[in-house]
């Protein structure tokens, strides 16, 4: 089965290259008008002064979700991206993927992270002209954490004591954590989904925020049209008059739109598309060395993975270099079954695991699983990795039958019952990723990893605001994960974006979000707005 899969995949990949090549061929051979336009853009290309005006068109792919405009309950990546345009938060992501102050001018936590005192900047305004005050921060916090809202991200900030949010003055709020349990990664957990909104907010009929753009028209599954917010808190930003977020269902179609000049910026290209950007005058590839982790979940509650030797064996079966080459088209870096490599507490001293089939076979033999046949459940995004890994496993005498499921099933109630499944996640700080993934408060722990010592260390570490005090705790936690955890993490992947030469103000980052900083982008051929 996997041979067929492999050849089909390789055929598809070749077809993408040929199809894209044809489209690109047009780019090279092509056509007067657009090249002239591109020429004008190139002429202005090196002028680094931002210009105002124009409409920036951003192409996204959000699978089958149409999504919504809810600041606190975004469904899918499209909703999150729209949220970045419409809402401002107390923090924003820095280029290093750490939280940095945004609407807040100060956010202080006490020594054990049990209280957070947050002060807003002066003179902040919502889209509707209302001044942003402490009451709005309190309302937004209560809305996000409201059980009745059923936000999927509520548990990330579940440590907030809803009954003890204090208003100290018009711009200052004190947030207390429940039962004296400090929670250091609050900002990390809050920054994506913590839009500050006024009390008359409604996600459908009144989606008001303080982000760089305000919503003008939303056609779910098709596009969102947004207009510039004149009183945005960052001076003279945003630059373009309008922002259009356009949804595509297909990578090839989106690439054709990018080189055809129908969109200016696309987020999250497929690795096999990178070749299309070589010597391409119509669009350039932007590689952000983010640390999105790519892996497999080994379920500790299921045989054979309840035996640590089998988990170790699987981690030795993986030929990580080959996976990076084949699945990521080289757009990634080697991982050692740990996440958050850019965190100051990352444990980089552990020896890197490499493929060792003899050792893997020996471990399986010891565990009494010489002949193993398992079902590997793959999401659409993980199917390439599943196919490549299944081939590697066969060399160790393990048969992996791949079952690809749709997103609804992949995130469905069975997700904690599968023996082995594909798994990937955003590259955030260490504690924040643990909180989302295999830590004691995770709601989506596919590995069912639960370790008394690890959990104890986690609960202590989230109360240590001092990095140096946190290092030994985090190191021990990672040692445990490396030794007996349920994650096989084989790479940190890059975020690949496509950028038209028209677009200025964009550069690669270590975050996932270089194309989501809508307030920074400007169009080189923009004409100053003529409207009053």
């Amino acid at each position, binding site marked *: 089965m996997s041979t067929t899969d492999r050849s089909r995949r390789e055929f598809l990949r070749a077809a993408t290259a040929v199809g894209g090549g044809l489209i*690109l061929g047009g780019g090279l051979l092509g056509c007067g008008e657009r090249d002239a336009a591109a020429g004008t853009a190139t002429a202005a290309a090196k002028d680094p002064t931002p210009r105002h005006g124009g409409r920036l068109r951003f192409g996204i792919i959000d699978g089958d979700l149409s999504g919504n405009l809810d600041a606190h309950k975004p469904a899918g990546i499209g909703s999150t991206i729209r949220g970045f345009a419409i809402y401002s938060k107390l923090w924003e992501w820095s280029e290093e993927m750490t939280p940095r102050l945004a609407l807040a001018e100060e956010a202080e936590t006490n020594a054990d992270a049990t209280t957070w005192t947050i002060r807003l900047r002066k003179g902040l305004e919502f889209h509707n002209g209302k001044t942003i005050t402490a009451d709005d921060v309190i309302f937004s916090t209560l809305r996000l954490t409201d059980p009745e809202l059923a936000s999927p991200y509520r548990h990330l900030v579940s440590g907030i004591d809803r009954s003890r949010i204090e208003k100290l003055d018009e711009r200052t709020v004190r947030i207390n954590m429940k039962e004296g349990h400090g929670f250091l990664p609050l900002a990390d957990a809050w920054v994506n989904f913590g839009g500050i909104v006024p009390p008359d907010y409604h996600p459908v009929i009144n989606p008001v925020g303080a982000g760089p753009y305000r919503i003008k028209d939303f056609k779910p599954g098709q596009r969102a049209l947004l207009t510039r917010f004149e009183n945005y808190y960052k001076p003279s930003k945003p630059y373009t008059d309008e922002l259009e977020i356009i949804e595509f269902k297909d990578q090839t*179609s989106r690439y054709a739109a990018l080189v055809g000049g129908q969109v200016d910026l696309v987020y999250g290209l497929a690795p096999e598309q990178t070749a299309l950007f070589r010597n391409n005058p119509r669009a350039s590839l932007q590689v952000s060395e983010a640390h999105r982790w790519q892996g497999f979940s080994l379920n500790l509650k299921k045989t054979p993975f309840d035996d640590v030797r089998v988990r170790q064996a699987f981690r030795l079966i993986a030929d990580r270099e080959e996976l990076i080459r084949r699945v990521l088209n080289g757009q990634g870096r080697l991982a050692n079954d740990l996440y958050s490599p850019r965190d100051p507490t990352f444990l980089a001293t552990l020896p890197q695991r490499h493929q060792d089939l003899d050792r893997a076979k020996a471990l399986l033999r010891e565990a009494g699983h010489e002949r193993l046949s398992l079902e590997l459940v793959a999401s659409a995004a993980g199917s390439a990795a599943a196919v490549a890994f299944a081939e590697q496993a066969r060399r160790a005498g393990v048969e992996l039958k791949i079952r690809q499921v749709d997103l609804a099933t992949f995130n469905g109630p069975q997700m904690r019952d599968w023996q082995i499944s594909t798994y990937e996640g955003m590259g955030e700080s260490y504690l924040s990723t643990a909180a989302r993934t295999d830590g004691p408060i995770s709601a989506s722990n596919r590995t069912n990893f639960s370790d008394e010592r690890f959990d104890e260390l986690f609960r202590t570490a989230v109360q240590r605001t001092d990095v140096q005090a946190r290092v030994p705790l985090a190191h021990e936690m990672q040692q445990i994960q490396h030794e007996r955890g349920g994650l096989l993490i084989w790479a940190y992947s890059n975020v690949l974006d496509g950028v038209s030469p028209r677009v200025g103000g964009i550069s690669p980052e270590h975050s996932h979000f270089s194309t989501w900083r809508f307030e920074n982008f400007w169009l080189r051929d923009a004409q100053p707005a003529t409207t009053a």
Partner: protein
Amino acid sequence: MSAAETDAPVLKGRGIPGWLPWFLKRLLSGLGAVLASSVIVFMATQALPSDPARVILGPEASEESIHLLQRQLGLDRPVAVQYADWLGRLLRGGLGHSLDSQVPVTDLISARFGNTLVLLGLVALFSIPLSLAIGVALALRRDSRLDRAAVTVLVLLKALPSFALAIGLISLLSTSVFSLLPAVSLLDPERSPLSQLQYLVLPTLTLVLSGLPYLTRLVRGSMIEALEAEYVTLARLRGVPERRVVWRHALPNALIPAIQGIALMLSVLFGGTLIVEVVFTYPGIGSTLNAAVQVRDLPVIQAVVLIVTAGVVAINLVADLLTVLLTPRLRTAGGVRLNVRRTRRVFRDAQNARLVKTHS
């Protein structure tokens, strides 16, 4: 949908066409089919793994949030209650709200249906006259070099999958060779699709080219059949001019399989053309339905299926009516069984359309 007996003399006395009671019965059974399909689809969505609450909230949601949303969406109630609720709302004129995007279903799908209808209209506008003209022309030049070459081209075109055709057209007309048209149909939702024809050309062309071989060969085959029929020979022997033989005697009979073929094509197009919609990012109903199924967005699935079923029933009804009106034996039937279904089945097989001898 079974055949209807008509009592022609009585009806004729009242001045009602003989086919009308049959038509009304078909209309009623069509409504029944629409309702039945809504029940089937509702049940089928229940059989899918996972549910809307989980999809909407994503992988990180806690069980508590999921159960709460299930309750808020009414998904924890028995299926029969959910269906009754939906039907009740429908009868009051509402289609509910999308579970995914929370906007009213009507807002979500009306523009999409509009876009699909515009595309369907354009495809029909080009493919019907084209297939009739080419089909008749080829039938009249049967077995000539032109005919053989044209049939080969049609077979090749038919064998080409529509996504390959679409990508080929993009390369030819948008990117690689010429740069005449936008590669992707990013319709501005604030304007009528008809005012943005540049976005409609490639999807229309793709669909016309992929539908044309079927229709043309159908017309050609049935025209050849008709030209060989006894009544045509008789007409020729009687000295009727050839032009009149072709246009007045042969063509009306040859049209019947074509009408059924066109109905089939339009029914398929009305349900959306997923592949073309994906390749061109055309905002039609096919991708909306596909996405709604993936996300388990029940109100959207139900609404789209309801309208598509109703549309398909209507298209077939019109086609059957035209068939009846074009078939004198059926049209004037006095005590003749109006078994259009059987007629249609037989007609659809162009090779065996020998019973088109109803011309009297």
